[in-house]
């Protein structure tokens, strides 16, 4: 049970059960795996990530490293898992990039002030992402692509065992997407990574496992080559696909018209 994330029959509802966003999802992923969750808008991708991160409530069971999420206090979850979603930055009150990344270490850094170790770790993460020159810029001065990298830096800064990235490639140009993709594969040596995306190419080239989600249910989950299939993708997205192979990797091309 350790070193993996296991979901059993996870159900998430909104508005007192009126809307069922996630309908009984079961998955398991182990250390070294990168799970990419793809699916159309409103499929429940972000909701599922938030349930795993204990940001929203759920029914069913979720285990992270042997901890049952719903019965584990938030501050313990915070030490083993980081969720990187959207943040909106209030201007005039915003911290610098370095200070923002340091906030992510609050659960692991006990004292009142940031320690030298905290700062070293935060700077190391910024360097890894190639944004160390932004360290002293204010968050409200960043472009959306730069902000995206800062959000990922925040997730990495406390070195969690599991990292959940909600659309880590959103607002990024192609070059930056590839940088993020390489980075995700690199951190997967230390941590379990789950991400969501709308870019199937990004998912196929980044993940080791893919989960297809539609209307809150898993259409298929497994190795990339087992999942990137015409019929499964069509059932997920409701459009036709052609599959081409580049360097042995299946790449789905949606059929327009």
């Amino acid at each position, binding site marked *: 049970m350790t070193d993996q994330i296991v979901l059993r029959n996870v159900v998430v509802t909104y508005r007192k059960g009126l809307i069922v966003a996630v309908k009984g999802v079961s998955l398991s992923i182990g250390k070294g795996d990168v799970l990419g969750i793809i699916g159309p808008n409103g499929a429940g991708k972000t909701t599922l990530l938030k349930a795993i991160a204990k940001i929203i409530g759920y029914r069913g069971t979720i285990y992270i490293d042997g901890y049952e999420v719903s019965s584990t206090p938030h501050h313990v979850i915070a030490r083993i898992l980081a969720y990187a979603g959207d943040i909106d930055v209030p*201007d005039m009150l915003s911290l610098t990039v370095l200070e923002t990344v340091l906030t992510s270490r609050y659960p692991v850094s006990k004292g009142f002030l940031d320690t030298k170790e905290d700062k070293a770790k935060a700077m190391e993460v910024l360097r890894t992402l190639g944004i160390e020159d932004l360290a002293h810029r204010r968050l409200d001065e960043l472009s959306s692509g730069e902000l995206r990298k800062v959000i990922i830096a925040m997730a990495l800064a406390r070195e969690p065992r599991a990292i959940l990235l909600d659309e880590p490639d959103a607002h990024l140009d192609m070059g930056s997407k590839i940088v993020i993709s390489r980075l995700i594969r690199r951190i997967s040596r230390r941590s379990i990574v789950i991400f969501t995306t709308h870019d199937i190419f990004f998912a196929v080239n980044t993940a080791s496992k893919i989960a297809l989600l539609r209307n809150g249910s898993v259409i298929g989950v497994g190795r990339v080559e087992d999942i990137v299939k015409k019929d499964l993708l069509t059932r997920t997205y409701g459009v036709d696909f052609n599959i081409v192979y580049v360097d042995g990797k299946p790449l789905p091309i949606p059929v327009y018209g």
Partner: protein
Amino acid sequence: MGKLRLFSLVVILLIISVLVIYVFSLYYGLDRYSGVVHDKILLYRRTRLLTALFVGLILGFSGSYLQSCLRNPLVDPYILGISGGALFTIYTYYLVVRTANMIVCALLASIGGLVALAITVFIAESIGGSDTAYVLAGIGVSSLFSGLSITVYYVIISLKPSASYVHTLLIGSFANSLPSRIPLVIASTVALSIAYILYSKPLNAVVIGDTYARQLGYNPRLIRRILIVLSGIASSIVVMVAGIIGFIGLVSPHIARLILKTSDNRLVVPVAGLTGSLLLLVTDNFSRIVLSEFIGEIPVGALASSFGAPFFIILLIRRFRGRI
């Protein structure tokens, strides 16, 4: 490391400035008097200076907390209507009971301030909850309670023309500070300082976002409620002790952020408090020592608005230039 050093330097400079002004104004020209008069003046000055000092700390702390909790750089206890609400209940209490019991008065002032704040938040959230929504709702609620307060004020004056305490509160002033009220401002300052130690660090995460703060293991709603209620009570007590002093709570945190070049609440909050103290001590002494030579004392509340409001307008322009 650089920021921490800057912080220490600024704090030390501010403390020295506050102390220098305190000692200077306590003894300035005092050698002209002797005996009982000397002692009485000394006591009066000490009371007035201590009140100004603690009121400044309270306003600086409260302003920082309110801005961070509401994630809104344009608010302070005065703009949110807290001061107006507190003043109205104090006046009403005074009108009905006539003898002011300090504790009851403080309690009622706090209730008035918090109710006014709740109305502002309710209106602001129902019109979108943006920065400007809060300012507009606050102005509405403030005006309502100012109008009511002035009405009650005239009723009190007609019944009891010598009610000088009531008169002072309308435009904040330290001229009628009472030694018996100092424990109230000290207690408020202590409460706000404890909140600083407990919550200024998590508050940084709350400013980034509720989802984020919750993820780090904090309870953003609880932190926000505690800090807002504490700030509301403390700034209501300020109204009871010194009347309405606008904009100090707005200006002080911004000055602190500007000097420190950060919005980290662990650094901003104490500097904002000390800045508030310094501003009020300087303004009050300017009024008592300089202005009184020529035109008589002008209430510190009036002076604070005179330099605070332009600052607020500049903030508004900076905030919205190019965004609409």
